[in-house]
């Protein structure tokens, strides 16, 4: 059986859904971050798969962009989580609800 681009897409969709559900149901900030990474990488997978299928370089280029941005985001995000953890001794995001309307 040949592995076509459609399979990659299916896998990416599955990974994305797992990440999204994880983001919504978990309360630990660290795990939520991991879920986001999962979603980002699901998207990356669609990019490279589509790029390869269509014979275009843009797919791989986009992936590099996403990786860089994700790395930056993680850096900032982790720093915030560490700061919050030091302040509250907890990484439960539901406790961080002071900025409500």
């Amino acid at each position, binding site marked *: 059986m040949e592995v076509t681009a459609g399979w990659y897409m299916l896998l990416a969709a599955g990974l994305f859904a797992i990440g*999204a559900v994880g*983001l*919504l149901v978990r*309360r630990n900030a660290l795990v*939520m971050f991991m879920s986001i990474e999962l979603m980002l990488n699901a998207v990356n997978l669609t990019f490279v798969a589509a790029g390869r299928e269509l014979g275009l370089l843009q797919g791989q280029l986009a992936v590099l962009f996403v990786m860089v941005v994700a790395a930056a985001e993680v850096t900032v995000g982790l720093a915030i989580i560490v700061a919050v953890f030091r302040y509250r001794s907890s990484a439960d*995001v*539901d406790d*961080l*609800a*002071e*900025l*409500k*309307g």
Partner: protein
Amino acid sequence: MVSAIWLVIAFPLAGAVLLLAFGKRIGEPWSGWLASATMGAAFVVGLAATAGFVDGSQHPETVELFEWIPGLGVNASILWDPLSATMVLVVTGVGALIHIYSIGYMHGDPGYGRYFAYLNLFAASMLVLVLADNYGFLFLGWELVGLCSYLLISFWFEKPAAAAAGKKAFVVNRIGDFGFIIAMMIIFATFGTLSYVTVFTEAPILLTEGTATAITLLLLVGAAGKSAQLPLYVWLPDAMEGPTPVSALIHAATMVTAGVYLVARSGALFQLAPFSAGTVATVGALTAVFAAVIAIGQKDIKRVLAYSTISQLGYMFMGVGAGAYVAGVFHLMTHAFFKALLFMGAGSVIHAMRGEQNMEKMGGLRKAMPWTFITMAIAWLAIIGIPPFAGFWSKDEILAFTFDKGGGFLALWVIGLITAGLTAFYMSRMMFLTFWGKPRWAEGEDPHESPVTMVVPLVALAGLTVVGGLINTPLRLSLEHFLEPAFEQFHVMLPNEGSLTELTLLALVVLVVVVIGAVWAYVRYLRDPVPAETGVTWDRLENGFYVDDFYGKTIVLPGKKVAEVAAFDVDTKVIDGAVNGVGRGVKGASERLRPLQNGLVRSYAAWVLLGAVGLLVWLLARGAF
């Protein structure tokens, strides 16, 4: 010389600018002399430029100064023709004398420099008005003289009455201006320009009688406002709150004649609209007799003269309405001489009586101030129309032309005749009460003759009053011939003078009426004590038939009501309500949207996901992929 005619405007304008900037520093009396000198210089330039018309070498000419609003055909350019020349000479000549008179009259006033700055600015504006070669430039002068009139009426603004009078003059004039502006709009819509030359030469081709009537009636509204004709005359009696030389210059000799000038200048339009011309004459005649009746009951010497001015302006309107433009302008000119003289004489009397204006407290002044008395007596004989003084020639010419026109104009002639009798009566009353009889002035008063700067202009104007009429007698129509080119250039027809026999007969009729009026006043007022004028009728006369109260009730009060409703109901409730309503709406909506911002990051994420899915569904549904 004609190319330098702009100097006529520039001199007084420069004077005004200088005095506004440095008036306080220049001080008394030099600011007065500076202002007078600019007027004198303007007069000399005007005279030199007029010389060409007299010997016939000069023809009407347009002098371009600069482009102003070319799209409207409105340029700052001057039409130099005999009509504008006549007006320039009257404005600068009489103006210069009144400036000189003011040097003495305004002595010791804290606003000395400011006064002369305004006076100079007025002269410059009036000269713009009469020299303009298009309605737009004329309107600039028209509005500026209105402004100066306002500034000078309320010159002593610390007096509430003066401040109110200035405001009233301004507001009433705006009503007239409203008509004038609409007239200009129709002119522009019809001709595509406001320039006299185009409008007047194309008028017979482009104008239907209906449009011509509309334009000219609206012009009449403007003219009636500026020239204090029925029903817009009410501001002029109140304008007497200003300094007396201002009354002489602006509210007797020059500015109020602007309406007459406007009608005469627009003769090419008025001759296409006989109905409007008839209306002008009727308004004039009615104003003449109405104001003359009110003048009989006035106790304040300046108010007598104010109503007399309204009445005489009515004569001028009657003249120009009857198509006798030269006669109207002639009376404008002689009236400028004798009415300025009367006002300045009255000023001299008031000066001597230390501010007293009530004639019942005067009497017997002829011995105390002989110069004022003699000059005023000449003006008195001139205004009531005793030959050979100026008023006789000009008033009788207007009446003769009205008579000659026949038809409905005969009724106007009768009104004019009655007015002549009334004029003789009230002017004689004023003279007898002021200068004859026993002194009735207050204890300790010692009236004395005015200083020489005030007397010299009186004498000069008295001279003009004596000889001024002789420039246009039926025997020698010099002014008529002088002015003809101004009307011929736009093909305005001038009526022919009646035969000498007819004119003599008419003059005799008028003279009889005049003498009856004067003798009646003589019998009534030259006795001791003078009749006490009290009672309902006199009260009505003194208060001008309560027209002011009537206007107050029918126009001012409803206007105030409308303003109140607009301010307290419409503004606070509707306008503010709408603004506050928008604010409240936004606040309410945000109150309802607030719970969405619940601070739970995961719920935000859920919304984002939901939004993304929704967007995807929408895109798929409309078949984007």
